């Protein structure tokens, strides 16, 4: 054995945030301050609480999407699942049992997620295809149920959850905080989270090392469905209605938030906290564009540019390593 003896290993404190997360945080902070200075309406309490509510919903589904994308998959169905859950909850809400409303809403999300997970893990169908299918199925079911009309929510826990506040903090925001914390713990501090990353990094190796790959994948998609269901409930409460077109295109916003937050599209690396900040960033930018009177149509263009620009910054760093 001729290798020189090893002297020192780096063993510093726990790293709280990775570099990509820090980048989003810094960008978010700067943007927040700049907007506060430029637009007096931005820091208005009404605007902020409205903004917080909107961001919270994006962030909840982005948290689920983070798990799926870290495992190397993708979930395109979250927007539709969210609508399905919201509509079912709104319908049941008329009957008045809060527990049933909540469990059916979340249950619908879990079922859709289980379906996705089963098809991806057991039948080994590409997740892009499976969840694209589920996107259409869930939206179709919503349209069949509602015939396109909104289902009003007049009373009950749904309204409180969607519109209430505790000590001035919107309940939606508290939900996001709890969900974000749990998901961050799961991804960063549990065996399940580690296995998720391992699968995203090298799936055959994960199997070879004794990870139950199908089970982990099934759980991951179920988790994403559950969170989409939860977001659907909350959105129905917030809007006082289960709407057939709720959450159209949200899956793409969630994916954008996840990627801006530093989760790798290739899988294996993911950050829930980054995704939450990514969602907040998207929300704040949208809000700013509204405050500055930019037309709805241009807003989409700007969001697209920011997505590409943000990722470009990351990949410019990579170019030096690759060499071409």
């Amino acid at each position, binding site marked *: *054995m*001729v*290798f*020189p*003896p*090893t002297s*020192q*290993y*780096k*063993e510093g404190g*726990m*790293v709280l945030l990775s570099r990509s997360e820090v980048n989003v945080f810094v960008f978010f902070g700067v943007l927040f301050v700049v907007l506060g200075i430029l637009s007096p309406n931005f820091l208005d309490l009404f605007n902020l609480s409205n903004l917080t509510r909107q961001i919270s919903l994006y962030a909840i589904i982005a948290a689920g999407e983070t798990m799926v994308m870290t495992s190397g998959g993708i979930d395109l169905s979250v927007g539709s699942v969210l609508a399905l859950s919201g509509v079912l909850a709104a319908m049941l809400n008329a009957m008045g049992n809060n527990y049933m409303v909540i469990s059916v809403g979340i249950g619908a999300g879990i079922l859709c997620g289980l379906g996705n997970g089963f098809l991806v893990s057991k039948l080994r169908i590409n997740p892009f295809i499976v969840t694209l299918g589920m996107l259409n199925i869930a939206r179709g079911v919503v349209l069949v149920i509602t015939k396109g009309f909104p289902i009003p929510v007049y009373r009950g826990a749904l309204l409180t959850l969607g519109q209430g506040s505790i000590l001035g903090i919107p309940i939606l925001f508290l939900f996001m905080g709890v969900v974000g914390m749990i998901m961050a*713990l799961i991804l960063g*501090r*549990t*065996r399940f989270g*580690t*296995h998720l*990353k*391992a699968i995203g*990094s*090298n799936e*055959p*190796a*994960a*199997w*070879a*090392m*004794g*990870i*139950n790959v199908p089970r982990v994948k099934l759980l991951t998609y179920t988790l994403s469905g559950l969170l989409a269901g939860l977001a659907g409930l909350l959105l129905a409460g917030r809007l006082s209605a289960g709407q057939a077109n709720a959450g159209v295109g949200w899956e793409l916003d969630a994916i954008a938030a996840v990627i801006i937050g530093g989760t*790798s599209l*290739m899988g*294996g*690396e993911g950050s829930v906290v980054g995704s939450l900040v990514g969602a907040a960033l998207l929300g704040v930018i949208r809000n700013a564009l509204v405050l500055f009177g930019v037309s709805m149509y241009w807003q989409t263009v700007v969001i697209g540019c920011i997505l590409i620009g943000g990722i470009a910054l990351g990949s410019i760093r990579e170019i030096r390593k690759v060499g071409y």
Partner: protein
Amino acid sequence: MRRAALMEEKTPILEVRNLVKFFGGVQALRGVSFKLFPREVLALLGDNGAGKSTTIKIISGYLKPDGGEIFLEGKRVIFSSPLHARSMGIETVYQDLALFGVLDVTTNLFIGRETCQLGMLQKRAMERETWQILQKMRTTIKSIRQKVQTLSGGQQHAVAIGRSVYVGGVPKILIMDEPTAGLGIEESQKVLELIRELREKGIAIILISHNLEHVFCVANRIVVLRSGELVGERCTEETNQSEVVHLMMGVTC
């Protein structure tokens, strides 16, 4: 002589009988049978496509056989997954190393065997143990928080081997698929030395290698596969490289 002595004295720690495996219409294994005894290094040889990797992937639980039986310490076992095989004391160092490039050294070492308390990973405890394992292996790895893909080839080999040998108790059987491929002379010697050390510790080893010098250096016995069939079995002392090559190529001498 020696082979006969081995067979009479000891019961095999592992025996495979009539392993059969199809990949679509291609029959990769046509009834492979052999025994592995305690404290021996068995070399599994054959040309490309002979069925070596398929054989060891069945023993490690990665692939399910289409026919045949596996006996571990005399008892018939059917491995449902690599987890099952690992829990029975069979560790494998795969040819491609089966590492997770974007994950750090500690995670790679402990994958599937994470230390947990109340459902939470004990990262510090695992990092401490990682540090000890790396010292034991005398690698040049500088930081255990490094992504494995940033390590050199030799360092990656060290992680893959360390994971199988030093984490989660001593294995009964260690399977090594091309453990010296792509390594420099010094690093190869290190691996061969480790194989001898492990055999002394009582671990039975199945070794696949294309390098016959390495095989003759450490193996006690050699079995040769050709087109999915076992075509020869020799004690290393009673044969030579040219005979083994002839067996592999299917030319009689």
